[in-house]
């Protein structure tokens, strides 16, 4: 089953992703992020949806809904505005959920 990859981000961050064959969805208004994510996920065309961290944060509710499904994988990536550490925070939240407390990344 071959599926596509999407990248949702602001117009600065998406630069170049379309050139390497990833479908790009521009979202400059953070309030629209959740809606765009929902529409993209509903299409059932994408196995992986990358999002910039700011948009990932604002669309948290939608992201949580999708996290229970095996498809698509919604992955936050740092955008053009730099890294705010959500990716690592997300990892430590996984550890916390599984173990009960964050035993791996607490000291970092």
């Amino acid at each position, binding site marked *: 089953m*071959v*599926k596509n*990859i999407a990248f949702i981000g602001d117009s600065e961050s998406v*630069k170049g992703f*379309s050139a390497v064959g990833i479908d790009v969805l521009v979202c400059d208004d953070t309030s629209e992020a959740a809606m765009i994510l929902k529409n993209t996920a509903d299409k059932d065309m994408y196995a992986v949806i990358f999002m910039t961290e700011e948009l990932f944060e604002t669309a948290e509710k939608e992201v949580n809904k999708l*996290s229970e499904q095996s498809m698509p*994988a919604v992955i936050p990536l*740092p955008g053009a505005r730099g890294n705010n550490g959500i990716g690592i925070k997300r990892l430590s939240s996984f550890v916390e959920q*599984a173990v009960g407390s964050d035993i791996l990344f607490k000291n970092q």
Partner: protein
Amino acid sequence: MAIMNVNPTRMQMTKLKKQLLTARRGHKMLKDKRDELMRQFIELVQENKRLRDKVEAELSVCSAAFTNASAVMSREALESSLMSSKQRTGVDVRSKNIMSVDVPVYKAVSESSDESDIFPYGFAFTSFELDDAVMSLNELLPDLIRLAQIEKSCELMSAEIEKTRRRVNSLEHVMIPRYEETIKYISMKLEENDRSSRTRLMKVKDMLLDKAHNYSGK
């Protein structure tokens, strides 16, 4: 711990003993499942961390490269050269079963005529900074897909571990003690019944003997 609301009969006790056995076996298996899931999860999450650090570092390099490119080229020229793409990157989705958790396995599929020909523009009107930027992003692509796979696996596994942990705990601290206490209660009740009927029989025997031979009259 509250005991169950059951009739204190031998039949019920046999049934409960069977259930207790099943609960114990289930508890042991779930515990093994949890331990194995946890071991794999920790390995995966550590790799996830490594990969994420790497990807984030390289992405910032890429984004710096694009900024460089946009400094030498006009905005319109840059955007129009990146608008189309020569290749289409997709992922072949399979799933793998890790201790009853279906985790995805992504394999990058590139639909392009020539693997090395990644640039969607002619070189005449673009700067070499842009070539660098596109190339470094293209090289990062396999890592991005791998990151997606591992992170989704971690997400699914952490949810499953939480569920299994709850089940193990509820069996260990609620179900099994409850069965044990109920069984104890029933067996004590049965013994009590046994003793009381025995004393009653002895009493009746005494009374009958008394009547037949008039023992007490002596």
